[in-house]
């Protein structure tokens, strides 16, 4: 057992201070969500709830269709994630293993899409989606996002790292590309798929500007839009707003807890070696 050194104590103290300041907004949210309305509006502001007023959650669920918002976001993020995984894997496989004319040019074209901020395309995309009658629909919320260059690069990176001997053995055994793709490349790249999946899900769960533009009916609102409208609605009781926030935060926190290990390292790999 080594004695605890000074730098180590310092590291603990600094980490604790930093962790507390990161946690503070979360704490205020959770504690307010558990307060009565009078408590959450009290001055000086209270840091602890007097008890666990869980009825706030019931009340918020009754006043606002928050479950509907969560469901919408869930459908949209899952559809985008699955679509992204499919398009990314397919394109990545072609770039990693197939020979075809114009490969470099098309790859450069894919690369260039990373340079186009989404906001630049947002006006024409809005007009397109509107002219197709896709406003207020899942199609309008998901289809424009079904492919990302980042996903293609990340998966290509994973494919290129697969043991070459394995691929060659499969070719010698007479496996076609489609078979190798489905039976070898994809199952062996599960870590990459998981990274991309977690990243894509969180990213699209958090989407704000696009859903704000293309949804107008309450039924189609995603969580982010729904939640930011809590404060404009008739109730400005902070405890209820915060209870709503907690309900919205829960799914992403669970997702993070499950996927953090995947994200660390995985994202960096795609970012750098792509």
């Amino acid at each position, binding site marked *: 057992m080594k004695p605890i050194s000074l730098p*180590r104590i310092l590291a*603990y103290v600094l*980490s604790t201070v930093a*962790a507390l300041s*990161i*946690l503070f907004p*979360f704490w*205020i949210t959770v504690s307010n969500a558990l307060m009565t309305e009078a408590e959450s*509006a009290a001055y*000086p*502001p209270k840091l602890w709830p007097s008890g666990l007023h869980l009825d706030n959650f019931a009340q918020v669920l009754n006043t606002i269709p928050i479950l509907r918002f969560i469901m919408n976001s869930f459908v949209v993020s899952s559809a985008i994630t699955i679509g992204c995984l499919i398009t*990314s894997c*397919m*394109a990545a*496989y*072609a770039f990693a293993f*197939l*020979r*075809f004319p114009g*490969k*470099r040019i*098309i790859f450069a074209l*894919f690369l260039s*899409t990373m*340079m*186009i*901020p989404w*906001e*630049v395309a947002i*006006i*024409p*995309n809005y*007009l397109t989606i*509107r002219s197709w009658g896709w406003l207020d629909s899942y199609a309008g919320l998901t289809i*424009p996002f079904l*492919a990302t*260059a980042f996903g*293609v690069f990340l998966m290509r990176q994973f494919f290129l790292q697969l043991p070459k001997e394995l691929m060659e053995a499969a070719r010698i055994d007479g496996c076609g590309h489609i078979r190798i793709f489905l039976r070898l490349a994809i199952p062996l790249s599960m870590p990459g798929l998981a990274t991309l999946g977690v990243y894509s899900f969180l990213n699209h*769960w*958090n989407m*704000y*500007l696009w859903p*704000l533009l293309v949804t107008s009916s309450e039924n189609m609102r995603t969580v*982010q*839009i729904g939640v*930011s409208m809590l404060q404009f609605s008739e109730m400005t009781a*902070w405890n209820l707003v*915060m209870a709503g*926030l907690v309900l*919205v*935060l829960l799914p992403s926190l669970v*997702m*993070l807890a499950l996927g*953090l290990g995947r*994200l*660390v*390292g995985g*994202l*960096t790999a795609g970012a*750098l070696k792509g």
Partner: protein
Amino acid sequence: MEKLEKSAPVPLKKKESHNPDTPLPRSAAGGASRTSALARFREGALAAAFIAPALLLFGLFLFYPLIQSVYLSLHSTNPRGQVANFVGLANFRNLFNSPGFPNSLIVTLKFILFTVPASLAFALVFAAVCRAKIRGMKIFRFVFALPIAVSVGTGSIMWMVLFHPTLGTLNYFLGKIGLTPVQWLTDPNMALLSISLMTVWMNVGFLFILLLGGMQGVPEEIYESAKIDGSGPVRTFWRLTLPLVSPTLFFASVTSVIGAFQAFGQINILTKGGPVNSTNVLVFKLYEDAFVNFRFGVGSAQALVLFAIVLLITVLQFVFAERKVHYQ
């Protein structure tokens, strides 16, 4: 067959030698070359099928809009988004002659200055601390990553409570240590700083994960040998960790700057560009012009200026910063 060249030793100098592209050595006789031509055609067709979905989506929702933006920016539009008449560069001229757009540019630049270096510095320190194999670091790792789970929508409302002039805990604490309360979101000198504070908090999660990943890619032996050489933690950080993680840091800075240019949600929710346009960043102005006032032509002109700036910054960062980046 085509993998043969891959396993062959490649001279180190030849950096981008994209092996699968290089043609096969012509060894086969006539009959074999016909089957190989067929095989090549099949492979090409398969590649086309594999690439088509992504390419189609990029075409429809990124490349076509880019061209359409150019077209729209040269026209005036009616509120339904239909082109009314050709106006040439008038939209661009109006942008730079009116006070609104230059103000937005300055606000955006300030916003980048307030958020990017601070976010990177915090994330870097957190990652350096969490890299060390100290007991309990798993908990810190989770906490530092937490903000990635918070979206702009939720994050903005969380901070709205903190920023509340009377009920907010921030002012309460300031009062406790004897300072006067701050009008976080209603003071024109303060609003952008407040938004930045909240944005740094939100950004830290993603950057932390990215940089921690970069640091974990560095082999442990390097750190061990530095330790044996008597290098302290601070010295190790400056001399070893920072240079080794510089490619990731470089990538993180590029994405952060681009991300800052795209800030919208927190401004729409917390300040609506006010007070007196002090938080009216580019994307918020674009949104107002295009989707509140339905001036799609002017909006598209702004989108193109935004695109040009982002492109320029990306290229500049690559030209200047990449030289200083240490690749292993």
